[in-house]
């Protein structure tokens, strides 16, 4: 039947439908909806450089798909008085999303980059598709970064900051301590309704009919609007000012559904109803996230008080489960890696404490971590990169201290390996005599490193520039870092060499902005760590060290650089976002490998990604290119 219908459609309609089918979200849309698009479309041409959509055009009335060519988004950089490309939209991709959904003008000038044809539908056809096609609506909402951010931020800043748990977002709403809802009848004057809210110390009241069906909700925010906009006296029946038809969910819906619904609609309250749509409770945003602090804090405490190595080893799988759940709930990768690092730190500390109890070498030391652990960017795939910093007690030589500390460090390295921290192949470990040094020795080491580095040894040594104390006094490290940073700031040659080194790893995009694969053997593999994240980490490190930023975390470094005016704030945001998205895709891949029982690697095949993720990845790599360009310009490479 479907094919029969298809052959009745004009050739050009069929051709547009098959073009659309090659691209997301159209690939998952029904034929009837594709036909609706094709039949209501116009085809427009824009020559290279023509404006397609401008903030001056007013509210966006049209939705476009690039049929051929490319559109670029332009932003004027006022500081440097030049125009910058903020994004690119290529064949099969749609624009604008945020503006048409937000019914506002676009904020970015869209310009044709090369001769470009676009298919376009008017707002009413867009609305029809948006309301009738689920895949289309999902795509539009997911693609709208502001909206997506809102959903993410609300869920994450609440759930994750309060340390999201592995399962509480799966908890059915009925298991929540639903507050006995405060209700009133539609005819109650607003004044009395507010009095009732006040008495019960709540921010909302549900208006119900005689059968206890919720018909409206009135919140303190509505009261504020009512007064500010002078909608009527306080004797007005609440029915006239309530928000009718409040959002409701059945009691067996889970907290995540509720959170998504709230985030999507900007409601802070939801009605929970029974099978017959009768009100049984109200759940507020605060209720949802109150239950969450348990798991992480609890897990951290369990690790921190474990009395046996065995317990620590077994707790590692809980960490993995926690990460899994957080990723499944769309947690922000920057927060997830910090949480992993936090839990890893707790584990490392506990291993150290347990050994100190058994066999204290008797000399105070600071346990250092380098590289990704130093940057607080660990994922489940992690090596040990650690060292020891000590102050030589009076009357002892450095060698004598090492004699005592090295056997201890060896045990620690071995036990950490049992806990899942792979032994470092490059022997960057505290049990290595070259990395178990006094403050004076570390300082000498850095002097040699900074003054006599060659590009070759820089490749292997740059991880020492991302250093953090995990255990023991932090003051010695702080003093050391201050000296190191001061030296790097003064040494332009070292900075330039570091910058040159950071440019060695190019983001995996070809000239035509397709993915550049690793090599012939791994034809479809991208290394997300070395090709995707490393360009950010390394470029940001150069800027951070050159500007005296002490933190090692890449996202925090970028924030700090924006604060100091080294990065344009908008650039910094784009780069932070791009970095986080690559990290998120990498971590999701790790979880999938774990599920399949495979060894963790950083390789992915972009063909395995859904089209939206592929597009995100491509755009993220392009941001890495922009960051590297900034490095090139700054250091004239």
């Amino acid at each position, binding site marked *: 039947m479907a094919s029969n219908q298809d052959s009745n459609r*004009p*050739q050009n309609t069929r051709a547009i439908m098959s073009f659309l089918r090659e691209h997301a979200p159209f690939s998952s849309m029904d034929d009837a909806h594709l036909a609706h698009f094709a039949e209501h479309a*116009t085809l*427009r041409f824009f020559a290279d450089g023509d404006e397609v959509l401008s903030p001056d055009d007013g509210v966006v009335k049209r939705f476009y798909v690039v049929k051929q060519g490319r559109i670029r988004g332009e932003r004027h950089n006022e500081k440097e008085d030049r125009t910058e490309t903020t994004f690119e939209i290529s064949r099969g991709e749609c624009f604008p999303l945020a503006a048409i959904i937000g019914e506002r003008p676009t904020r970015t000038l869209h310009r044709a980059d090369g001769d470009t044809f676009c298919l376009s539908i008017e707002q009413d056809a867009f609305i029809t598709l948006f309301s009738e096609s689920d895949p289309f609506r999902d795509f539009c909402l997911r693609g709208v970064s502001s909206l997506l951010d809102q959903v993410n931020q609300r869920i994450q800043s609440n759930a994750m900051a309060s340390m999201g748990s592995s399962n509480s977002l799966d908890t059915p709403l009925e298991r929540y301590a639903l507050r006995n809802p405060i209700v009133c009848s539609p005819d109650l004057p607003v004044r009395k309704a507010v009095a009732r809210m006040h008495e019960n110390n709540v921010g909302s009241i549900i208006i119900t009919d005689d059968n206890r069906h919720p018909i409206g909700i009135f919140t303190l925010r509505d009261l504020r609007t009512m007064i500010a906009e002078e909608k009527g006296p306080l004797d007005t029946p609440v029915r006239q000012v309530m928000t009718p038809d409040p959002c409701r969910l059945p009691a067996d819906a889970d907290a995540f559904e509720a959170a998504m619904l709230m985030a999507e609609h900007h409601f802070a309250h939801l009605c929970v109803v029974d099978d017959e749509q009768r009100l049984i409770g109200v759940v507020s945003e605060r209720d949802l996230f109150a239950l969450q602090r348990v798991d992480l804090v609890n897990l951290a405490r369990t690790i921190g008080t474990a009395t046996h190595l065995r317990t620590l080893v077994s707790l590692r799988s809980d960490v993995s489960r926690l990460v899994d759940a957080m990723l499944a709930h769309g947690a922000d990768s920057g927060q997830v890696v910090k949480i992993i690092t936090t839990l890893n730190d707790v584990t490392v500390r506990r291993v150290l404490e347990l050994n100190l109890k058994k066999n204290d070498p008797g000399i105070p030391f600071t346990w250092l971590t380098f590289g990704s652990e130093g940057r607080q960017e660990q994922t489940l795939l992690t090596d040990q990169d650690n060292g020891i910093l000590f102050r030589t007690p009076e009357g002892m030589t450095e060698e004598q201290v090492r004699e005592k500390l090295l056997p201890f460090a060896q045990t620690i390295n071995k036990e950490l390996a049992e806990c899942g921290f792979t032994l470092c192949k490059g022997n960057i470990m505290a049990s290595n005599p070259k990395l178990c040094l006094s403050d004076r020795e570390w300082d000498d080491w850095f002097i040699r490193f900074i003054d006599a580095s060659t590009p070759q040894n820089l490749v292997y040594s740059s991880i020492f520039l991302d250093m953090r104390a995990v255990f023991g006094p932090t003051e010695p490290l702080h003093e050391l870092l201050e000296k190191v940073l001061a030296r790097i700031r003064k040494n332009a040659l070292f900075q330039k060499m570091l910058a040159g080194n950071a440019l060695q790893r190019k983001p995996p995009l070809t000239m035509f902005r397709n993915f550049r694969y690793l090599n012939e053997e791994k034809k479809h593999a991208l290394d997300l760590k070395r090709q995707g994240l490393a360009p950010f980490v390394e470029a940001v490190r150069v800027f951070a060290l050159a500007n005296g930023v002490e933190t090692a975390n890449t996202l925090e470094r970028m924030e700090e650089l924006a604060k100091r005016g080294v990065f344009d704030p908008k650039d910094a945001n784009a780069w932070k976002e791009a970095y986080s998205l690559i990290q998120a895709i990498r971590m999701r891949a790790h979880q999938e490998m774990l599920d399949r029982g495979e060894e963790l690697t950083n390789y992915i095949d972009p063909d395995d990604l859904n089209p939206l993720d592929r597009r995100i990845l491509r755009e993220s790599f392009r941001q890495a290119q922009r960051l590297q360009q900034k490095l090139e310009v700054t250091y004239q490479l």
Partner: protein
Amino acid sequence: MLDYIKQWLERRRAGQIGAHEQDNLPAPKSAGDQLLSDSRLIVLDLETTGLNAAKDEVIAIGAVAISGGVIHLEDQFDLILRRPELDISETVLIHGIGPEALTQGHETEDALLYLLDWMNGDPVLAYHSAFDQKFLEKTLRVELGYTQQHLWIDVADLLPAFFPDAKTGGKRLDNWADFFGLEVSERHHAAADALATAELTLVALNKAGKEDVKTLKELNDKLRYHRRLQNMHRF
């Protein structure tokens, strides 16, 4: 498409549009001062049984409309004519139209009347338009006795007039389509070729706007000038 024609014919027979005659068909427009950016232009392509207008016949008509410099896909014409009496084996391979598709078609006369009504007397553009013009005019004359002349514009002239330096490697539709990187969904299908021709027309109209060619008359003058220039080169 066929449904549209059916509805249109029903309305026409019911007297809503007029009798089954030509009197109340829209009159062809001439190249006046109407702005290109306001005009409706028909871009048309025919599939025929062969190249000789004296003996060959039209099999399929595909056309799209450009209004306000934009192709409106809801305003298109895609029809296979009913020509059961013709031996079409010659060109069947090129067009992918088999005889069985043709017998499914509609009464030629009705379809042509609908076409004229849909064209609305607007200027007609085609690639190597002399060919399409000859065939369409002959068919309209033979089937309907219709003899009014539309304004025809040759897209094969339009493109070199605005892109004199383009190295297309040839003068065919394919050459220009390749030059601008167009994808033709199904070459030698009347509607698909019409759409490709219309896309090329959009490119030319974009350029025209930038060269201050604003009206249909100015466009026609430019083409005439360009043709004269070409002829001078020829001698």
